[in-house]
């Protein structure tokens, strides 16, 4: 009897999980479906069956060079992630293994910077970028996205590092490992799952960031977020084309997420259940 209740609950949770997953995924699914409709079909009302036309994709590619935007997205997302990890690993190490009485405050302060509305610092940042010649440059945007995501990266790595027993590092020290050797040869290999999931999450966050990527670029460094924005129009119906542009923009990150979902889930739930 107890087993029957448990099975029912299992089925209930599974159904609930599917419903929630479908609800979350449905807007993306409908965007993909709309991208295979003509503009007339797209405005005709709700329908899950498209005519299958590829005209929107052809027009999107004719209007903008997708691969240029794609390449910029890759450079900026991967570059900012590598840069963030280079800074965050030592920072998280020190906070996890050599905490001071202010460590928690520092962590909280770092996280609190994420609560500030980005638009509040738009003009100062824009002026700094203008004066340093970083407007519309890969390096400027890479640094900007690294700074935006750094608090989350530090926090995630700090959580993973805290799970690693300090005794192992002590043993390494006893065996004569230097600080650098301790981080590179002992800590990092043990934290690979955590670092991998942090890296994946950071790439996704950087890929999707639109506020700064649209505002600090024009042509040279504009990534896929700018590509999508160029198809939005308040005067004229471009819904099918906008959907095609969105599908092209999210496809790489969806594929990457699909193949790395095991690492992502493992990383995100790491340390969540004690």
């Amino acid at each position: 009897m107890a087993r029957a209740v448990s099975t029912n609950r299992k089925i209930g949770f599974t159904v609930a999980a599917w419903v929630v997953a479908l609800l979350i995924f449905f807007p993306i699914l409908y965007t993909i479906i709309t991208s295979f409709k003509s503009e007339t079909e797209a405005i005709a009302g709700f329908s899950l069956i498209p005519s299958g036309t590829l005209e929107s994709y052809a027009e999107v590619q004719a209007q903008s060079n997708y691969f240029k935007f794609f390449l910029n997205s890759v450079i900026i997302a991967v570059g900012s992630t590598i840069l963030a990890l280079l800074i965050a690993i030592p920072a998280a190490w020190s906070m996890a293994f050599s905490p001071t009485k202010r460590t928690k405050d520092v962590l909280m302060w770092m996280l609190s910077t994420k609560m500030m509305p980005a638009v509040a610092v738009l003009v100062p940042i824009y002026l700094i970028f203008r004066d340093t010649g970083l407007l519309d440059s890969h390096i400027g945007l890479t640094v900007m996205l690294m700074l935006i995501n750094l608090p989350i990266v530090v926090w995630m790595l700090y959580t993973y590092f805290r799970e690693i027993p300090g005794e192992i590092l002590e043993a390494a020290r006893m065996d004569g490992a230097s600080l650098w050797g301790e981080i590179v040869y002992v800590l990092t290999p043990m934290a690979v799952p955590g670092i991998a999931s942090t890296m994946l999450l950071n790439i996704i966050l950087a890929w999707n960031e639109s506020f700064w990527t649209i505002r600090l670029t024009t042509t040279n460094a504009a990534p896929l977020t700018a590509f999508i924005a160029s198809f939005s129009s308040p005067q004229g119906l471009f819904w099918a084309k906008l959907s095609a542009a969105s599908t092209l923009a999210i496809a790489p990150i969806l594929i990457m997420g699909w193949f790395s979902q095991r690492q992502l889930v493992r990383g995100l739930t790491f340390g969540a259940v004690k």
Partner: protein
Amino acid sequence: MKLNTLFLGLCGASALAFAAHAETITIATVNNGDMVRMQKLTDDFTAKNPDIQLEWVTLEENVLRERVTTDIATKGGQYDVMTIGTYEVPIWAKQQWLLPLDGLGADYDTADIIPAIAGGLSVDGKLYAAPFYGESSFVMYRKDLMEKAGLTMPDAPTWDFIADAARKMTDRAADINGICLRGKAGWGENMAFLTAMSNSFGARWFDEKWQPQFDQPEWKKTLQFYVDLMKDAGPSGASSNGFNENLALFQQGKCGMWIDATVAASFVSNPKDSTVADKVGYALAPDTGLGKRGNWLWAWSLGIPAGTQKAEAAQKFVSWATSKAYLELVASKEGWANVPPGTRTSLYNNPEYQKAAPFAKMTLDSINSADPTKPTVKPVPYVGVQFVAIPEFQGLGTTVGQLFSAALAGQSSVDDALAGAQTAAVREMTRAGYIK
């Protein structure tokens, strides 16, 4: 073989030298049919100007406005040509953020620009942006439904006629709404429509001393009329409808009338997209007999920021894109119906255009009947028909738009919305120093 190698080498070197010499100008623009078409035709410009290369940045209207405003205010220098509207031009020209367009060439024919449009883009008699396409607003209506209702649309209807026709055309069972009007909140959304409508009811945003006027009976009449009409004959969820939503409804045959931008005429009369293409008639925006009609005036125009280092090349591009020759180029490639409308008088005298665009005369009459320098029945201290050309208007217009949209949705009363608008306007105008 050696000669071939030498020839190829020389070609390569020449190409490199040319690329190094070519000047690249960056153009910020919006995503609409006419602008996209221009991007496709830029080979014509680069063939005529091989020393100038073009880079395009296309953005959604509001993002574009924010980006170019930030760039021009901080002298960021990211753009050499900007697509701006009649709202920005007088404000930016007074700030000396734009270069006057005095080098457009001997054959440009500035006098051919429609006077009302040229007036909206000039400050102290100098043109600060060249119109790429211009628009007013007018009534688009279903001739078959009008006939079914036993009515005949006059060329210049009154608001009472429009209200009566809308109620008679409404057939909820057949999913036909008598009238579709903008309801989505925003200074360029519902407030563009309602400000123009209020002009015809004798209302104004401010008196000569910049005192807000939402507590006056003219505004009450305007908003009450609009809310009542939409309740009786408008579509459901109208408070979320902007241009695109109403366009979709009209094209699907769900609106008896639609009062909106004149550029919409080419969409609703295009059989490829519209199910009612052969049933659409046009009339001037309505009035109440006070001497002003409820139509606006807008022109997407090309301006050159004062901070550009490539002013000469930018002027060449602006001259090409807004010239008579460009209209002929579009006509030769895509037909007269696709020519950007509303900028040049000569276009409306062209019999081929008149034939291709049955709404041409009504568009020109609508544009000519809007006067941005005298937009209201009573005197005002500002210019602009559907906006007030002051920097504070974007924020204030959107705040008031939200209040009016809430009244349309039934979340507040007309009186409460007007009281809220008056309070917000007094606060903002006092803060900005207009009210001493």
